[in-house]
């Protein structure tokens, strides 16, 4: 196995045990980048020189006994929404072309402190306002969408050109590409991970999340992102747990909403995964997610006017530099009344309270991450057998929005593949700040399976 194909946990064990040099590891990832970027375009910027210098520094520090913990010497990608001092951060927009931040975002600074090695900035749907990342290609089938908006981050991890990556999630932008590319996506509880130095889309919904090959890796990265410097080096992730079963875990199975207008192959795979959780000791409890009929309105009522406010100056001064799809959404969002924005905020209060009540009876809710796998890149709409038609974007955001509107933590895990070999994702949602339960459930589920979390073939399987 090439070192670029390792999980973070595997690489950390090898680097910490001085069996693998960070220099070799980073070189392996850069070689994979060279082989795959022409086909996938996961990165907006690769800074190989800087990565090599950081790897050499990590190697020297570890050799001298200054091991900082499991991310030390591990190569990663950062979504191009997240500021990095001295490296262009353009949010995928011509409006920010040539922008080079003077200082790191808080998350970039925390990863640097943990010793992680930045490979480059990953592609995003412009200003994260979309779910497709059209400039990036799915590593499992190039003619399918990569999803987004953190499409570059998901593809980099899926392809082996990063061991982990960060994304942002305002309406599923971590979980959707995670599901479509067969990696693990964690959207933490709203507010847990600082957004300082991250380009906003919608202040009251934005979350920085992780893209990894395993839930265990997500725990390692989340620990570094939330670590404020009080922990000693090498502190093991408590989320990993020691028990190999899920005894006592109560899994809520939605009796409505999450399995409506869902592709049959996705439904069968997710229900099978829920059965697998049961076989591991969990109990299943039927639940009815409340107020779902108001989810779309609440989400749009929050996001559209906030995004318009974020870009008020840009739309006034350089409107021609925005892509047409994003400009249209921003200009329309500027028409929303303050009264409607406040009504959405009050609706969110109701929804959050009602969903908290569901978690009185369950520990996690399990559901499909997205209603269908990666569609062809030129497909715009989804036609369901009962005649219901929706845009591809609406389909992908539909099951993700509850995690953003409630702010609750949500984890997307690859659980199966459809008949075309495309990944199928299951999402698990927990009560606020209960990431530990999500990650433990995900880790136990992964360890029970015989398909290791390996990247897509370097040369691709389909064109």
């Amino acid at each position, binding site marked *: 196995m090439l070192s670029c194909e390792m999980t973070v946990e595997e690489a950390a064990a090898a680097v910490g045990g001085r069996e693998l040099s960070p220099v070799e590891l980073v070189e392996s990832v850069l070689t994979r980048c060279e082989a795959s970027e022409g086909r996938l375009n996961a990165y907006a910027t690769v800074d190989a020189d800087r990565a090599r210098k950081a790897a050499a520094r990590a190697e020297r520090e570890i050799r001298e006994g200054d091991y900082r913990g499991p991310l030390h010497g591990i190569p990663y990608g950062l979504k191009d929404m997240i500021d990095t001092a001295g490296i262009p951060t353009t949010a995928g927009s011509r409006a920010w072309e040539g922008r080079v931040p003077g200082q790191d975002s808080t998350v970039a600074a925390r990863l640097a402190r943990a010793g992680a090695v930045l490979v480059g900035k990953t592609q995003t749907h412009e200003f994260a306002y979309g779910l497709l990342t059209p400039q990036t290609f799915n590593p499992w089938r190039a003619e399918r969408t990569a999803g987004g908006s953190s499409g570059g981050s998901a593809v980099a991890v899926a392809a082996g050109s990063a061991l982990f990556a960060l994304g942002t999630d305002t309406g599923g932008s971590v979980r959707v590409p995670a599901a479509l590319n067969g990696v693990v996506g964690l959207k933490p509880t709203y*507010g847990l991970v600082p957004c300082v130095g991250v380009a906003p889309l919608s202040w009251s919904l934005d979350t920085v999340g992780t893209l990894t090959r395993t839930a265990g890796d997500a725990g390692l990265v989340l620990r570094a992102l939330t670590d404020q410097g009080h922990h000693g080096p090498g502190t093991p992730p408590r989320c990993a747990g020691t028990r190999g079963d899920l005894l006592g875990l109560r899994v809520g199975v939605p009796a409505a909403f999450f399995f409506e207008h869902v592709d049959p192959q996705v439904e069968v795979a997710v229900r099978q995964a829920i059965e697998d959780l049961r076989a591991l000791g969990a109990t299943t409890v039927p639940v009815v997610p409340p107020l779902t009929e*108001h989810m779309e309105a609440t989400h749009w009522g929050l996001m559209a006017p906030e995004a318009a406010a974020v870009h008020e100056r840009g739309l006034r001064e350089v409107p*021609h530099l925005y892509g047409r799809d994003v400009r249209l959404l921003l200009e329309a969002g500027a028409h929303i009344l303050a009264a409607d924005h406040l009504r959405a905020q009050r609706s969110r209060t109701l929804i959050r309270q009602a969903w908290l009540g569901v978690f009185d009876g369950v520990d996690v809710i399990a559901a499909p991450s997205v209603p269908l796998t990666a569609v062809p890149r030129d497909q715009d709409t989804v036609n369901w057998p009962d005649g219901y038609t929706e845009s591809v974007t609406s389909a992908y955001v539909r099951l993700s929005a509850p995690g953003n509107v409630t702010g609750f933590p949500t984890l997307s895990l690859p659980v199966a593949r459809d008949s075309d070999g495309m990944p199928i994702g299951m999402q698990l949602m927990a009560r606020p700040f209960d990431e530990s339960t999500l990650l433990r459930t995900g880790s136990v589920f992964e360890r029970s399976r015989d398909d290791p979390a390996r990247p897509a073939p370097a040369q691709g399987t389909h064109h």
Partner: protein
Amino acid sequence: MASSYGPPAAPQEPAPEAGWSDRVSELAAWLDGILAGLHGLDLEGVAPSSAYSAAGTQAGTPDAVL
């Protein structure tokens, strides 16, 4: 007398294509239609959730999470 709080000058850039403002209006109308669904909610006594209360943000600490 002109107000200092008036709207900024209109963008000097031309609209990106003919019918652009119609497209913006159509999307704005669609959003209005979606948001109208919230009018039926009983929100009496319900306070808005701010950015920082959306998930009880301040209640958790990193140590409590992992």
